[in-house]
């Protein structure tokens, strides 16, 4: 069994990414298209929310990805700081750009959903506020990348920021919970009781759940494809600048 660290070799990573990328892309497109079309056209309207419930197929997966991408960045940043594999930190950088867009999508679709349901675009609800703070963390992370010229210094500093930021993001989440009670419902899609069937009351109905699951898988695949693409581009960019520097020297 090949070790995962083999992919720390940029050449090996690029090769694998190039081989896998078309498949992941096509799979993501198919899953997303199926999930969204199924969700939008072949599910009944919710008896209270009407057709606005269908925004769930974008809102929930985007929100899920926004958090998970930060978690992935935390892991890859740690790998960079401990084992100093360049691919790892470049993947974190690529993931951050995707993550900031996912956070924005979750916020905007949430506002669009909140307007007819709660009668307001925005409330200072804990979940909404935490997402806004997460958005700020993403912005700070990306801004730090942009601000530093030397790539290794930038990688080190952003990695430390990611780790410190994670701690403070979790802290903010609890602080915000303490600060204000909210309108947003609790987690009702993936609940331990709901999966095992012991808790049937508070769960999203299966009619909505299966297309939603498909959309979630689609978002994950889309994210994987984008990260592969962005990381490969970054590796190529590094190599180009290295070649240019060598040319100038000779």
């Amino acid at each position, binding site marked *: 069994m090949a070790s995962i660290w083999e992919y720390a070799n940029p050449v090996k990573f690029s090769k694998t990414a190039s081989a896998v990328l078309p498949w992941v892309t096509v799979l993501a497109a198919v899953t997303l298209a199926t999930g969204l079309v199924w969700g939008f056209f072949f599910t009944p309207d919710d008896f209270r929310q009407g057709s606005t419930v269908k925004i769930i197929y974008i809102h929930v997966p985007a929100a899920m990805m926004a958090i998970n991408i930060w978690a992935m960045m935390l892991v890859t940043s740690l790998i960079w700081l401990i084992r100093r594999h360049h691919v790892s930190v470049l993947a974190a950088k690529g993931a951050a750009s995707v993550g900031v867009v996912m956070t924005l999508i979750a916020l905007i679709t949430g506002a669009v959903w909140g307007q007819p349901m709660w009668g307001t675009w925005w409330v200072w609800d804990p979940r909404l506020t935490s997402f806004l*703070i997460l958005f*700020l*963390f993403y*912005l*700070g992370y990306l*801004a*730090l990348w942009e*601000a*530093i010229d030397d790539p290794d*210094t930038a990688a*080190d*500093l952003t990695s*430390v*920021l990611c*780790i*410190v*930021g994670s701690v*403070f993001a979790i*802290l*903010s989440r*609890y*602080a*915000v919970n*303490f*600060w204000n009670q909210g309108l947003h419902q609790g987690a009702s899609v993936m609940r331990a009781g709901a999966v095992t069937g012991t808790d049937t009351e508070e769960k999203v109905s299966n009619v909505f759940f299966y297309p939603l699951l498909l959309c979630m898988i689609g978002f994950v695949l889309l994210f994987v494809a984008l990260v592969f693409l962005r990381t490969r581009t970054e590796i190529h960019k590094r190599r180009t600048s290295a070649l240019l520097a060598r040319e100038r020297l000779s």
Partner: protein
Amino acid sequence: MIALLTRDLKLATRAGGGFGLGLAFFLIVVILVPFSVGPESGLLSDIAPGVLWLGALLACLLSLDRILALDWEDGTLDLVATSPLPLEGVVTIKALAHWLTTGLPMVIAAPLFGLLLNLPQPGYFWLVLSLAIGTPALSVVGTFGAALTVGLKRGGLLLSLLVLPLYVPTLIFGAELARRGADGQATTTPLLMLAGITFGVIALLPFASALVLRVNLR
């Protein structure tokens, strides 16, 4: 370390050190608030704890880039880094000096500014207590931000973008403690949380600050 602390304090308090600038900024924020929201004393006393906390936070933020930038420019930081002092200790001393020159004066002056905003009577004790416990956290977190951006040409604005999200938990619990104190509600939970955050960042964040400072000095 004591020598470093006295040096920083002397530099800050003597002419050109910018001592009191943060305090003046705090005062101006407090004075501007009634102009923007109107002079009704009921409204002012409602928002007083929050405004005072926000003013203290912004005044603290304003002086962050002075913590390390000047020492970086004249090479003091390189000398200190090559000295036998551990860099973790150095950044802790830097944060302490920053707190003594900006945080502590604000804690002392806050009741006076509370008077301007018509802070309710029971609120003064809690305001001073919350600021006294909370502002060290602001200084320590700010030192981390300053260490992150010290090598950058235009680090000032970026520093705010990086540090402000990190200030969120401290601000929430600090302002909540002051507000609850002013309203006469139970104050134990925010008090404990605020103290926990402060002691936590004092214990852990200097390691991160020293780490990024080493990267920047490389």
